């Protein structure tokens, strides 16, 4: 029997597999028993109603996907009345993903969702911040630190900061999130991308640009997870392009404590269960008693990664 349990800043998960925000909802309960997952992570909500972006909201590019859904939200009231009670039927921890256009709105929502039945809050600081010219909070260390401090003061629950790959300061942002009060880092959100239909010459997303996810994102997000695990001392939850147990193992070796599976669920609705099953089988076959033995076990010769990143840049 392999021990699959992991600990995310005091929150015990029965296994390290959970959905990525935006790729999971109550409807998946009609396909399999959601109690099998390590945690449940809801789609990002905002305080107020949001319509979301114009269609097309997704398109596919060479074995991966671009999306610009635009966080359609029914608001915090509907969320607390319908979504939180639905997930109370499960013992699996509930992680609520939230976002805000301004620091005030974000902090108020953080407080409002700190209710019974919610075990942690994933704060999506990769979303545009209208007080910073639409740049995401997590692009800069300073805005990351400031928003995390505000959110930290608003809730006693564990806060997982979801970072963006659209930054040149990965390690600095990770440390700023930790210093601002984050309990864990989710690494990462999608990377800003574009696709154009050569026949119509129109962008293939209604919002012109969108986030790349799926297998093409994996090496980038894995690199970031590794950088964050080296830079910060809080747990890293790997996210980006995971579609097999091998992908999960790679993230854990890089330093992630758990992982989120996103776009793969759109291709195979039971992908998370297949991954979980294959992960357990792989650990058993390798004679590894506990999944936690893998975490951060990368053999990198303790090279200075800042120097390594600079060498690539040159």
């Amino acid at each position, binding site marked *: 029997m392999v021990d699959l349990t992991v600990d995310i800043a005091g929150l015990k998960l029965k296994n390290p597999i959970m959905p990525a925000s935006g*790729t999971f909802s109550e409807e998946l309960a009609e*396909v*399999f028993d959601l109690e099998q997952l390590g945690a449940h992570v809801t789609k990002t909500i905002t305080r107020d109603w949001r319509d*979301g972006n114009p*269609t097309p909201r*997704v398109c*596919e590019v060479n*074995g991966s996907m671009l999306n610009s859904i635009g966080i359609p939200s029914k608001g915090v009231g509907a969320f607390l009345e319908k979504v939180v009670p639905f997930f109370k039927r499960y013992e699996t921890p509930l992680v609520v993903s939230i976002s805000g256009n301004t620091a005030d709105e974000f902090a108020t929502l953080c407080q409002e969702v700190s209710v019974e039945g919610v075990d942690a809050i994933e704060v999506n600081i990769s979303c545009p911040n209208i007080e910073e010219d639409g740049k995401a909070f997590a692009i800069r260390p300073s805005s990351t630190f400031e928003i995390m401090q505000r959110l930290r003061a608003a809730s006693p629950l564990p806060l997982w900061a979801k970072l963006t790959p659209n930054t040149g300061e990965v390690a600095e942002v990770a440390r700023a999130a930790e210093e601002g009060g984050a309990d864990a880092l989710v690494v990462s959100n999608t990377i800003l991308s574009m696709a154009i239909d050569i026949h119509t010459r129109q962008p293939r997303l209604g919002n012109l640009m969108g986030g790349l996810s799926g297998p093409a994102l994996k090496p980038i997000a894995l690199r970031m997870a590794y950088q964050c695990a080296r830079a910060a001392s809080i747990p890293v939850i790997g996210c980006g392009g995971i579609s097999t147990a091998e992908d999960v193992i790679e993230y854990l070796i890089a330093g992630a404590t758990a992982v989120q599976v996103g776009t793969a669920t*759109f*291709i195979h609705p039971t992908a998370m269960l297949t991954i979980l099953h294959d992960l357990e089988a792989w650990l058993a076959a390798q004679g590894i008693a506990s999944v936690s033995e893998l975490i951060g076990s990368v053999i990198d010769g303790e090279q200075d990664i800042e120097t390594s990143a600079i060498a690539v840049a040159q």
Partner: protein
Amino acid sequence: MLQTPHVTAGADAPSAFDLDLRVKSNIAVNGEYRMMVLDAPTHLLEQCKAGQFFNILCPQAGGESPYLRRPMSIYGFYPEKNELHFLYKVGGAGTRAMATLGENDSLTVFGPLGTPFTIEDDWKNLVLVARGVGLATLAPLALEAKRLGRRLTAICSARHPDYLMSIDLFEGLGARVIALTDAEGTSTPENLEVVVEKLIADGRADAFYTCGSNRILRLLQKLGEAHGIPGQVALEQQMACGVGMCQCCVRKFNRDDKVVNLRVCREGPVFDMAEAIAW
């Protein structure tokens, strides 16, 4: 054939299944359309309802590498012979890859999904108006109408008589079939209006059903409003997950004096015709 879904004891019984099904046949129906017949288990077929769809994992074949699944309406489901049918027009990468499959190949399908058509108790005379591949979506409704003993008129519209499909299927179900084609000049909105008005005058139109044409939707909305006749429309939209998680397949609808986004995969693909907004 059957890939058992991972379901544990005590869970709610699943209503949608992701299964690898064997291809029984996959043949051209005419120059534009193909029909795929899959060998499907009874428990799957017994869940299916007219108007629902499957999200299909198209194969990586024929030089095509579709990534996302492709939603496809159920053309027929027959528990008694373990068959699931899809009628499709070869267009993009997904359907080109599907067309390469032969007998005994395998196709992964996820479903049934979505809100089906309904036939209210007092809708005794049904009118189906189908154009092109919209017909595929309406075919199972004809079967249900026969099962319920309703009188059915099927108006089938196509570019050319060669592309009129399923006339035999509808006639076999006891429907009166009216065929309209562009080639014969009978498929214009003006002529369709005359045809439908006649059905209304004859007391043969308690409800309208349609799929596949914006012009037909507009016309039936107009006639439905003028004569107080209800209707349902099955709509399409590009999808990713197919079950409501990703929110990519929204369209705008008139509901409660507001324009709202609804998910075609979940609140649809069948909608109240009066709420639909022509595109």
